[in-house]
């Protein structure tokens, strides 16, 4: 018994780390809207295949957001971001991946978010590369994804990273069904950010935002009618309903009487 509960001896924060952390905290509390200190992530379970292409300079408020929809169109920074993601994948998940699997990638300031899709799984990550700072980020992936052909409704989030425990700036990736024409993040403070949709997947980066815990992803159809609304920060394995595929097999949620049809996904 004693052995099990024996833990390593306590340690001090590494001196350089303690000083830097303290300085970051002080900077954060003085400039609450430019917090760049803490990366928190919530990930999901699921996705599928493909490749796309095209790059765009997309206005996003006062900033310019670079959006890439394929490996051949990556900006130099996004190229670095993708390389970093591939390296992390090699270290951690080892999903067979290459540059050609990039489905969507977005970049703003010193950060980027990428979603790779393979024939059987996915890998998605966010990378922060501030000058003279550690490269940091988060990632999530599935080598084999039994639910790849189905979504729990019109939209499925695959990765959320946030600068604060309960919001701040966020990076989100995921996928949508064919009937979603527009996807908007409502921050919860009256502000919104539109996601970039590309062949059934999306990427979204907020900039200098105050996304709150009550933020929601809202989907609209081709007529501009709202068809879905769901909390951004809900754990990925929690659903309002269960979802069944066309054969009636449960694909998401717990068995129940109120199961809804899962929405097909393809690219």
């Amino acid at each position, binding site marked *: 018994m004693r052995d099990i509960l024996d833990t390593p001896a306590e340690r001090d*924060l590494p001196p*350089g780390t303690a000083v830097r952390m*303290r300085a970051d905290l002080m900077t954060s509390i003085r400039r609450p809207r430019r917090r760049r200190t803490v990366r928190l992530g919530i*990930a999901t*379970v699921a996705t599928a295949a493909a490749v796309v292409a095209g790059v765009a300079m997309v206005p996003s408020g006062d900033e310019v957001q670079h959006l890439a929809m394929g490996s051949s169109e990556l900006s130099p920074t996004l190229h670095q971001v993708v390389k970093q993601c591939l390296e992390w994948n090699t*270290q951690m998940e080892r999903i067979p991946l290459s540059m050609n699997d990039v489905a969507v990638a977005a970049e703003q300031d010193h950060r980027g978010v990428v979603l790779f899709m393979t024939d059987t799984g996915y890998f998605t990550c966010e990378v922060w590369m501030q000058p003279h700072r*550690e490269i940091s*980020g988060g990632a999530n992936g599935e080598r084999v994804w039994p639910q790849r052909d189905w979504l729990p409704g019109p939209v499925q989030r695959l990765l959320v990273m946030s600068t*604060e425990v309960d919001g701040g700036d966020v990076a989100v990736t995921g996928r949508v069904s064919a009937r979603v024409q527009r996807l908007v993040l409502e921050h919860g403070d009256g502000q919104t950010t539109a996601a970039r949709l590309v062949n059934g997947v999306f990427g979204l980066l907020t900039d200098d935002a105050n996304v709150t815990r009550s933020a929601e992803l809202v989907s609209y159809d081709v007529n501009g009618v709202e068809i879905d609304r769901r909390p951004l920060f809900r754990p990925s394995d929690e659903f309002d309903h269960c979802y069944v595929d066309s054969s009636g097999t449960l694909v998401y949620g717990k068995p129940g009487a109120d199961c809804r049809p899962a929405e097909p996904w393809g690219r």
Partner: protein
Amino acid sequence: MTSQIRPSDQDLWSTIATGDEVAFGRLFDRYARAVYNHVFRLTGSWTLAEDVTQATFLVAWRRRGEAAVLVDGLALPWLLVVATNTTRTEWRSARRWWAALRRLPPEREADADPASDIVARLDDERQMTKVLAVVRRLPRAEREAVALCLWSGVPYGEAATVLGISEGALRSRVSRARARLARMVTDGNKQEDER
């Protein structure tokens, strides 16, 4: 003659509530180490412990207007529970290993930790991973009670207050955890013997 008096947590928190950053810095200096080690014992990762420690103090700053965070005049029990909750959010998804996804750029290597310290920390992580492999089989409430009371040494009364449960209930959790762990060890030993 001058003498320096260490302000109580109550005094510090009252000052922090007015937006005093210096006082907040002192709170960080006072408790960062305790939070850091607490999170390490919950996660088995020194890197994640750094990030969650930072997140914990950001939460503390945002909630500086709340008097209820102090338990018997102390801020540490509440800080440890905030850290626990933050860690829980982080680990809700099994494949969340973002904290491991860090590396030092060349310009920082000059002031990086000595190699011996890095090796020692890796040993810590290996040891803690073994401990957590067993402890994570406990129900969450029991696991967190063990971390708070047994590992971080928060008195039962203070821990119970900040968790919002009775001291008796908390003691029961720890007691049940001990019993379960003992069974796990026994079962594990039997399996070893049978091989």
